[in-house]
C-alpha cells in the first residue's frame, strides 16, 4: 500500500510545484486583463463595475497607435535582417571549423544576456560618435533603431537554428546531390525545409523580443518616433487609468495568437 502511495505522493508534489510556477507566471497577466475591464479610472479593489470603454479608448490614443505601427515596422525589419544574418552564421558555426568558432558563437549570443541599459548606453554613444564622424543621421532614425533591434534578434536565431542543425542528418544533403541537385538547390529544397521549425521559432521569438524591448530602445528613439512600450511608459507617467491595461491585453492577445498559429505548423515545444 505505502509503496504504491509513495510515488503518487511525489507526483502530486511535482504537479503542485508546476501549478504554482505556472500561476506565478500567469498572475500578472490575469490581473492586467482583469483590470482592463474595470469601470473606474483609478484602479482599486473591489471593482466598482465592468466596462469596455478603455478598449474603445486605445485607438483614440495617437501615441499608442503610432507606437504600435513603429514597433511592428521595427520588429518585422529587425527579424528579417536577423534571419538573413543569423541563419548563414549558424550554418557556418555548426558545419565549418572556424577560427575562434566558440568565441564567435558566444559573441553572437551576448546581446541576450547583456542588460538592456548597458546595450542601450553603448549603442547611444556609438551612434552619436558615428553621426559626428560621418554626418549620417543615426540616432533616432528608423535605420538606427532597426540596427539595434537586429542585435537582440540575432541571438535567438543563432541559438534556435544551431539547435535544429545539431540534430540534422547531413546524409540527406548528400542524397540530394547524388540525385543531381547542386549546392543551392540542395540548400533550398533539403536543408532549409529541415530546419524550418527552428527558423520559424527564431523569427517568432526574435520578433516578440524586439516588439517588447523597452530599456535599449529608450536610448535610441527620437522625437516623434516612439515604440509602443515607450509610449505606454510615457502614458503611465501622467495617468494610471486602465487604457494602459487594455493596450497590454491587446498585445497579449496578438502575441498569444501568433504563438498558437505558429505552433499549429511547427511544434514550438520541440525546438525551444
Amino acid at each position, binding site marked *: 500500500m505505502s509503496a504504491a502511495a509513495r510515488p503518487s505522493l511525489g507526483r502530486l508534489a511535482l504537479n503542485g510545484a508546476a501549478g504554482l510556477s505556472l500561476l506565478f507566471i500567469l498572475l500578472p497577466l490575469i490581473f492586467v486583463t482583469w483590470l482592463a475591464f474595470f469601470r473606474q479610472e483609478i484602479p482599486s479593489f473591489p471593482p466598482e463595475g465592468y466596462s469596455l470603454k478603455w478598449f474603445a479608448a486605445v485607438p483614440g490614443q495617437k501615441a499608442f497607435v503610432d507606437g504600435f505601427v513603429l514597433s511592428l515596422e521595427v520588429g518585422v525589419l529587425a527579424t528579417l535582417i536577423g534571419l538573413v544574418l543569423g541563419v548563414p552564421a549558424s550554418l557556418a558555426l555548426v558545419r565549418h571549423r572556424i577560427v575562434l568558432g566558440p568565441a564567435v558563437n558566444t559573441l553572437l549570443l551576448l546581446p541576450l544576456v547583456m542588460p538592456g541599459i548597458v546595450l542601450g548606453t553603448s549603442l547611444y554613444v556609438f551612434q552619436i560618435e558615428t553621426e559626428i564622424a560621418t554626418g549620417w543621421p543615426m540616432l533616432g532614425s528608423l535605420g538606427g533603431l532597426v540596427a539595434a533591434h537586429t542585435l537582440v534578434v540575432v541571438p535567438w536565431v543563432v541559438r534556435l537554428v544551431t539547435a535544429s542543425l545539431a540534430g540534422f542528418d547531413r*546524409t540527406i544533403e*548528400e542524397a540530394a546531390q547524388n540525385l543531381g541537385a547542386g549546392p543551392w538547390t540542395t540548400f533550398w529544397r533539403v536543408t532549409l525545409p529541415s530546419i524550418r521549425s527552428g527558423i520559424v521559432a527564431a523569427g517568432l521569438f526574435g520578433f516578440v523580443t524586439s516588439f517588447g524591448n523597452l530599456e535599449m530602445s529608450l536610448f535610441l528613439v527620437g522625437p516623434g518616433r516612439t515604440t509602443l512600450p515607450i509610449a505606454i511608459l510615457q502614458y503611465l507617467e501622467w495617468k494610471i487609468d486602465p487604457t494602459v491595461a487594455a493596450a497590454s491585453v491587446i498585445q497579449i492577445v496578438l502575441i498569444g495568437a501568433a504563438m498558437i498559429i505558429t505552433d499549429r505548423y511547427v511544434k514550438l515545444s520541440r525546438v525551444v
Partner: protein
Amino acid sequence: MARLSIDTLKKVYGDFNAVDNVTIDIADGEFLVLLGPSGCGKTTTLRMVAGFIAPSAGKIAIGERDVTNLPPWKRNCGLVFQSYALFPHMTVAENVAFGLEMRKLSPADRAPRVAEALRLVRLTGFDERYPRQLSGGQQQRVALARALAMQPDVLLLDEPLSNLDAKLRQEVRVEIRDLQRKLGLTTIMVTHDQEEALTMADRLVVMEKGKVRQIGSQRELYEKPADRFVAGFIGRSAFLDGEIAAPGRFRTAGGLEITSTAAKGTGPATLALRPERIAVAGDAAASANRFEARVEHVSYLGALLDVDVKLSGHDRMLLQIPNRQGGVEPKPGETITIGWAEDAGLVYPREP
C-alpha cells in the same frame, strides 16, 4: 548502364593511406561487392566513386566518361545510403521524383517513371505516405526506388541491409539481386557481412588496410585465397605457424613435420587448412599427414562442433566436425587422431 573503371585510386589523410592504389574494373551489368573489416577503405572507395570524397590520386571512369573531377550531382550514380537518407519532409512519390525533377523532367513525364520505380520495389499505392509512416524495410525500398528512378549509369549500395532485421535481410538480398539482374545495372555494394557478400556478388573484392587483397569469384576466394588474411576472412581456416623446411616439407613451430605440395621456397611460413579438409579418427587413417591431438575445448553449434585441439606444445588448431548420427563426438581431455592430404593446405610466407 555502363562499365566502371577505378584506376590506381588513392586517398591519403595525413600519413594514413585510407585507400591505397585500388584498381578495379567492373563490367557492364556486373554486381561487385567490396568486402572487408571496418576501416579497410571500402566505404571511402565507394564515396570517391559517388563524388563525395576527392581522390588524392588515380582515376575513375564511368563508360568512356572520366568522372574523377566531377561533382556528385553530375555523376549519375544512384547511391542507396546505409541510413536510407530519405527526405523527411517529402512524400514517397516526391522522394522518388526528386532525381527526375533535377533532370528537368516535366511533372507529366515524371509520373510514369515514379510509378514504375515504385512498382519495381513493390510499393505501389504508397505514393502519398511520408517516410516516418513506413517501416525500415519499406524505407529501404523507397531509397532503392529513388536511386533507380533516375536510371543511373551505376548503382552504389552502402551497407544497404545493415539496418534491417535478420529475416528481412534474407528477403531483401534476393530482391535486390533479382532487380539488379533484371535491369542489368552495373552495381557496387559495400558490406562487412561475409554471407551477404557471398550470396549477392558476381565477383568480390576483399580489402584490408586500404589495399585490395584479392579480386575473384566466391569459389576462387574460398579455394585459392591469395594470402593469409583472405584465408582467414573468407570462410574459416585452421592456421599452423612454422617454416618451410624443404620443398614439399613444412615444419611447425612445435616441430611437427608435414608434407604439403603447397610448400615452396624457404623461410618462415603459415600453413592454412580448411576445416572440412581435416579428417578425424577413422576417416584420417589413410591421410598422408596424421597426428595425435589432445582435445582442449568443444563448442556445440548444432550442425557442427567446433573443436580446439593441441598437436604439440606450440601447435593448436581449430577443427569443425559435422555433428552426425553415430559420428565422433570428442570430449575435452581425450586424444583423437586427425589427418589431411598432401594437397589439402595452402602455405603463405609469413607476413612482416
